[in-house]
């Protein structure tokens, strides 16, 4: 095994239907028009020396090292900025060029530390490589002249160090920040010799830098270097794997020394990220070996007892015996499981199999219940598939981008960078969000329309957009006639044309000026390729599913489905939300979204699994908790989820958990839910997993094990052993066998195997006989269901309304540096950017309550109350407050309610009526939770040691 090094062509690979043929050093080469001479040479394997060029960035032509001679042309043009032309004859090496290059290198080296042996980039330094390539043997200018060798390092960023003494001012970092990330945090200050890279008038930590790592990756020297490399040295081997954070599913090279991770480097050939990353995937992996990890199985009789470490056999045996006892006493439906979007497809598949075949019921659900279940319902109803329509790359062909209820720069930053690049190229942007998210206005980005709707009024807004398009005749009639069910369309068109759906009428609900809605509708309908991207701001409402169908209506109405640059695209919150849904985690359907009541489908599973399956839908997570509080649901197996922090109305969740007699937690940490656990089965981090994740674009990516599971077992093995202990034989020798079983049972996965994934790199399902290479774009010639289905989407205001007692509306979201419940990111240096959840409140609402930034405030809803610090900002509109839910001690979900989507029971996190007032103490729940943290997480051995 060796270190994976991608080829660097020096300049971006161009795509053109016109090809040109030229001669380089006597060899003929044919390349797409627009390709640089440098890249054309590299396609022959000829490395022209370079420093300021790298193929993730546009050519810059500053280092003067890549000079070539071209017959018939004067001088020595830079090969990076010179396009290849037909008939061109290029010479990359001769005495004249060698002399010029050596002269350039002498100048560079005369102002560069000669500490190669102790330099962190030793062995991975392009300057060192170029010195070797040009045969540099001496520097005629000496080293005593004016130089930058004593410039002071900037160590303010926790993940990388900026050492200006090693900077050659090639500008790659500045351009990476602009072109790849789109943040524009870096610049070159000064002129001539004084030119230096600066993150503005501050240090890196205090700057606009988002720590995506693009500058570090682009740096050809040790000027910008990962602290882990400075501490550990260069890696000696690497493996391609997939990030465990958001639904973008970035591919990374895990660079290793033995079984120690040195750094994560975004993989250029990864289709989801194409060599880019964010602060989480790039740097926030330290949690995997954090001292909080629990790697030994534990059990306890009561949740008030301390945990007791036991053997795997004892833990699994105890869990199985408890589940069997409970089922014998309370009935076979009294137990269930929750699968995790942070686990692999294979791990998820075996858990739902255990439930259906081992428990004998269908009480299995997944955390998608509380995020994107309305996406599944809505898109399946309209199009016939429970998934997004495009690949991420599609956004480069979008002309009008409509972002609804998503905050991509924080939640899906790598995709946001792609989107921002397209916006800088001129695509139009409409943002529908109660809050002024960064996309509304940031460096070189400005939304054409920001529609700051009131929380809970999405459907009124989407209906108004469609109303304008229908009544102003802006629809794509041919598309609708050819592709959609006309009877449904006609019923819908009559509904949507009703004046009650006009922007003027809906303004009373949404608060968005009618003129802006009309203008935005016209832009979306007539501006070319219209692409919708959305997130949990759409789904987590009482009308979440309605809104998804409303967006599908809008896209079909304008012919914006079935080609590049368009579509309805859910930005999935967690890395394997799509996959966990695909794998049959929902209680009503088997893998591939086939209903459990379908006899033919069930028969296929029954024959392979050798067991009769229940034909009735099981309980969803909220139903399980309701049943637990009611005394009918007594045992649960929770795989990698923390429902006691992530799910709404936490006090109801914990009441349900406390009422159960056996709660089995499989996780990395003793999380909030584990406080109510009886059995703890230590899980494996993504670095220890072998399997697949499926991202938001339906892309199945391999997750490759880079270190052994700290617990000694793979998670799928644990589940299989639990199934065996329950009496159901389930065993595999490798996760590829689980994928083979998935492929046998699931028509959309029938062409998927580990071998095929290794061949293709990744596969977007459906992958089968009809689409052996996978399916980047869905619904090209026809919808999966046949004709597209328009659904009536009447606006029904949520019951959760502001009133005299709770006059403000709380909406929640996430921030760039933290992830979901924070179990991973809170255990990394990312917490330096976000140490606590704060309440954003508008100056108007703050002033009327006497609240100043930094004040401790109480936020109370009908579900509960918490205290947190206030931040006054006009990012939120008057009447709306906002917070995150990353910190367990805050308990943001103590105040969210159990209101939910009508179709899927997805909680209405985004609308909670609250009152905010100054306080001088934390809430009773917070005080109690603080005490319970100490009592309910005790481990007997620790306890004994402490006593001794």
């Amino acid at each position, binding site marked *: 095994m060796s270190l994976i090094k991608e080829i660097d062509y020096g300049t971006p690979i161009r795509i053109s239907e016109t090809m040109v043929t030229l001669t380089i050093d006597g060899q003929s080469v044919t390349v797409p028009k627009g390709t640089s001479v440098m890249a054309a040479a590299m396609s022959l394997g000829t490395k022209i020396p370079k420093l300021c060029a790298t193929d993730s960035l546009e050519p810059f032509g500053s280092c003067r090292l890549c000079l070539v001679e071209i017959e018939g042309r004067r001088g020595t043009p830079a090969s990076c900025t010179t396009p290849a032309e037909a008939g061109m004859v290029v010479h990359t090496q001769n005495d004249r060029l060698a002399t010029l290059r050596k002269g350039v290198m002498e100048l560079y080296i005369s102002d560069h530390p000669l500490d190669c042996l102790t330099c962190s980039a030793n062995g991975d330094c392009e300057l060192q490589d170029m010195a070797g390539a040009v045969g540099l043997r001496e520097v005629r200018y000496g080293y005593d002249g004016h130089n930058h060798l004593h410039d002071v390092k900037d160590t303010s960023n926790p993940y990388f160090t900026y050492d200006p003494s090693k900077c050659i001012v090639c500008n790659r970092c500045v351009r990476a920040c602009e072109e790849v990330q789109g943040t524009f945090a870096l610049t070159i200050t000064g002129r001539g010799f004084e030119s230096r890279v600066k993150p503005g008038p501050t240090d890196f930590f205090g700057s606009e830098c988002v720590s995506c790592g693009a500058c570090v990756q682009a740096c050809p020297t040790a000027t910008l270097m990962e602290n882990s490399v400075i501490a550990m040295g260069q890696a000696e081997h690497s493996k391609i794997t997939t990030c465990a954070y958001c639904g973008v599913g970035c591919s990374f090279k895990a660079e290793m020394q033995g079984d120690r991770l040195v750094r994560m480097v975004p993989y250029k050939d990864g289709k989801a990220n194409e060599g880019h990353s964010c602060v989480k995937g790039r740097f926030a992996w330290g949690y995997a070996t954090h001292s909080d990890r629990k790697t030994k199985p534990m059990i306890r009789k009561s949740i008030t007892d301390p945990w007791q470490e036991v053997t795997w056999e004892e833990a699994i045996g105890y869990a199985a015996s408890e589940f069997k006892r409970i089922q014998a006493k309370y009935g076979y*439906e009294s137990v269930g499981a929750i699968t995790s979007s942070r686990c692999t497809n294979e791990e998820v598949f075996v858990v739902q199999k255990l439930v259906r075949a081992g428990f004998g019921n*269908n*009480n299995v659900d997944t955390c998608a219940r509380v995020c994107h279940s309305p996406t599944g319902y809505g898109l399946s109803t309209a199009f016939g598939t429970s998934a997004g329509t495009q690949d991420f790359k599609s956004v480069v062909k979008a002309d009008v981008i409509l972002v609804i209820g998503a905050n991509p720069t924080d939640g899906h930053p790598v995709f946001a960078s792609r989107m921002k690049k397209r916006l800088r190229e001129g695509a139009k942007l409409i943002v529908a969000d109660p809050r002024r998210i960064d996309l509304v206005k940031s460096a070189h980005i400005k939304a054409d329309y920001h529609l700051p709707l009131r929380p809970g009024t999405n459907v009124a807004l989407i209906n108004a957009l469609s109303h304008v398009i229908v009544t102003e005749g802006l629809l794509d009639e041919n598309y609708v006639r050819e592709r959609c069910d006309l009877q449904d369309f006609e*019923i819908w068109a009559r*509904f949507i044309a009703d004046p009650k759906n006009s922007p003027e009428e809906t303004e009373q609900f949404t608060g968005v000026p009618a003129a802006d809605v009309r203008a935005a509708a016209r832009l979306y309908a007539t501006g070319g390729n219209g692409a919708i991207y959305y997130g949990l701001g759409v789904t987590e409402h*009482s009308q979440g*599913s*309605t809104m998804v169908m409303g967006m599908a209506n809008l896209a079909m109405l304008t012919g914006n489905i079935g080609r590049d640059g368009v579509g309805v695209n859910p930005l999935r919150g967690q890395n394997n939300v799509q996959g966990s849904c695909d794998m049959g985690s929902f*209680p*009503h359907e088997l893998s591939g979204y086939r*209903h459990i*009541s379908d006899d033919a489908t069930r028969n296929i599973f029954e024959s392979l699994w050798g067991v009769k399956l229940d034909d*009735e*839908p*099981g*309980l*969803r997570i909220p*139903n399980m908790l*309701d*049943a637990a*509080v*009611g*005394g*009918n649901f007594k045992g649960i197996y929770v795989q990698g989820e923390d429902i006691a922090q992530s799910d709404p109305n936490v006090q109801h969740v914990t009441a349900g958990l406390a009422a159960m007699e056996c709660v089995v937690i499989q996780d990395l940490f003793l999380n909030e839910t584990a406080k109510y656990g009886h059995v703890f089965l230590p899980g494996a981090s993504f670095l220890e997993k072998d399997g697949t994740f499926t991202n938001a674009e339906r892309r199945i990516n391999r997750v490759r094990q880079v270190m052994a599971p700290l617990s000694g077992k793979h998670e799928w093995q644990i589940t299989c052993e639990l199934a065996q202990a329950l009496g159901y034989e389930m065993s595999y020798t490798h996760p590829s066998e689980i994928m083979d079983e998935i492929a046998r049972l699931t028509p959309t996965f029938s062409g998927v195997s580990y071998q095929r994934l290794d061949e293709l790199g990744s596969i977007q399902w459906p992958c089968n006989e009809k689409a052996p290479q996978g399916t980047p774009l869905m619904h090209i010639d026809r919808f999966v269901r046949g004709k597209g289905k328009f659904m*009536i989407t*009447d606006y*029904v205001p949520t019951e959760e309304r502001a009133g005299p007692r709770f006059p403000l509306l709380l909406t929640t979201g996430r921030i760039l540096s933290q992830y979901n419940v924070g179990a991973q990111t809170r255990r990394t240096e990312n917490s330096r950017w976000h140490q606590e959840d704060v309440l954003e409140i508008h100056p108007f609402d703050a002033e009327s309550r006497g609240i100043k930034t930094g004040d401790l405030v109480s936020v109370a809803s009908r579900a509960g109350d918490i205290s947190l610090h206030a931040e006054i900002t006009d990012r939120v509109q008057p009447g709306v407050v906002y917070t995150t839910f990353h910190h367990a001690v805050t308990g943001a979900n103590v105040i969210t309610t159990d209101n939910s989507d*009508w*179709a*899927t*029971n997805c909680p209405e996190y985004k609308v909670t009526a609250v009152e905010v007032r100054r306080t001088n103490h934390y809430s009773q729940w917070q005080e109690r939770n603080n005490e319970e943290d100490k009592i309910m997480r005790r481990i007997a051995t620790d306890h004994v040691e402490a006593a001794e």
Partner: protein
Amino acid sequence: MSDAHTSHTHQEQAALKLAKMAGQIESFFAHYPEEKAISSIAEHINKFWSKKMRQDFMAAYEKNQSALTDLVGKALPQIRH
């Protein structure tokens, strides 16, 4: 408060919650012609509610349809239990 009374209260609350859920489903389908709306409500409940949820719902409301919203009440005969 006796256990029996507590349990009874919970049963009532659970039934009210199911009625609320059914009412939400009705609010989506209410704009379709009545026959289609009724069958869609029943189909949705049959497809997504567990057998026990349906049984509890029917037990609470089969003889008390007036406590339900109009179309949900009319959908009861089509709900499997």
